[in-house]
């Protein structure tokens, strides 16, 4: 189906509920998910992930099938923070070091290690991110 809507919906099952939040487990499929032969091809690593989402005014019960809705733009934003930004950082560090004539192995190692502070910073910003990345739950009939 053509999905040009602004939101993505995934289906999941409520696992846990506590004041205003529900933990929902969803299926996350590997890049081969759309391939109809994934079962023959062992790379069918669909793993269960849980997502915590606001319940809003609706009430849910454990074990209920629900939909999780997220703004599409959030997905792109997440990709940016999780992948693109560190990549740019890595590249920038590498090019700078390379330019200043540091030894290749050192350059390489530092470029990898620069990810450590990067992800630490993200860790510190976790609260902000939590506010940005919110999901909504809907009932499924």
């Amino acid at each position, binding site marked *: 189906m053509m999905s040009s809507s602004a939101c993505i919906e995934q289906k999941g099952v409520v696992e846990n509920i506590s004041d205003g939040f529900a933990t929902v487990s969803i299926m996350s499929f590997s*890049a081969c998910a759309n391939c109809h032969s994934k079962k023959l091809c062992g790379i069918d690593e669909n793993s269960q992930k849980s997502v915590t989402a606001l319940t809003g005014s609706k009430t849910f019960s454990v074990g209920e099938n629900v939909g999780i809705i997220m703004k599409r733009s959030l997905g792109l934003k997440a*990709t940016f923070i999780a992948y693109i930004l560190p990549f740019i950082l890595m590249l920038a560090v590498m090019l700078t070091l390379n330019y200043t004539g540091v030894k290749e192995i050192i350059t390489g190692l530092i470029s990898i290690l620069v990810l450590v502070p990067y992800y630490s910073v993200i860790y510190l910003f976790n609260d902000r991110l*939590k506010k940005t990345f919110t999901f909504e739950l809907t009932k499924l009939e």
Partner: protein
Amino acid sequence: MELILIIIGAVFVNNIVLSKFLGICPFIGVSNKVDTAIGMTGAVTFVMVLATLVTYLIQVYILEKLGIEFMQTVSYILIIAALVQLVEIILKKVSPPLYQALGIFLPLITTNCAILGVAILAVQNEFNLVESVIYAFANAVGFGLALVTFSGIREQLELADIPEGMKGVPIAFVIAGILAMAFMGFSNLV
């Protein structure tokens, strides 16, 4: 300048998907939606660059030092498999909400042959570190270019009346063929 030539070469002239035939599975599998294709490109860029960086170091500072280059395939694939998983764990640990958003948005990145292939090709081309990384990046961009264009066409074709027998994978290959043919216009650009 060298680097720019590497980029143009990998993105347009020898596009990883359309002329080198790597990463065809995700190309066919994840190319139904434009957004997902864009997201996938971002993720693949990161993983491809990281993988090439690490394998480059392994190649030059371990395998070649020890004279056991024949271990390339085994060590690369192990490293890439572990790396992909590692990234996931770190993300999950570092920021659950971010991780959750990705989980909803993107399929997991699978260790496909594009990542391994690019790592091996970078070595085969005898690139240095920076060139290897740029090469990986350019290939990721090339992959993304093909993937996003392609997903656009497929999204539009959802609304078209494709003959029954051609629906799905066959038509995808025909599009890829025509796209590859169009990209031949770039040949010799560098």
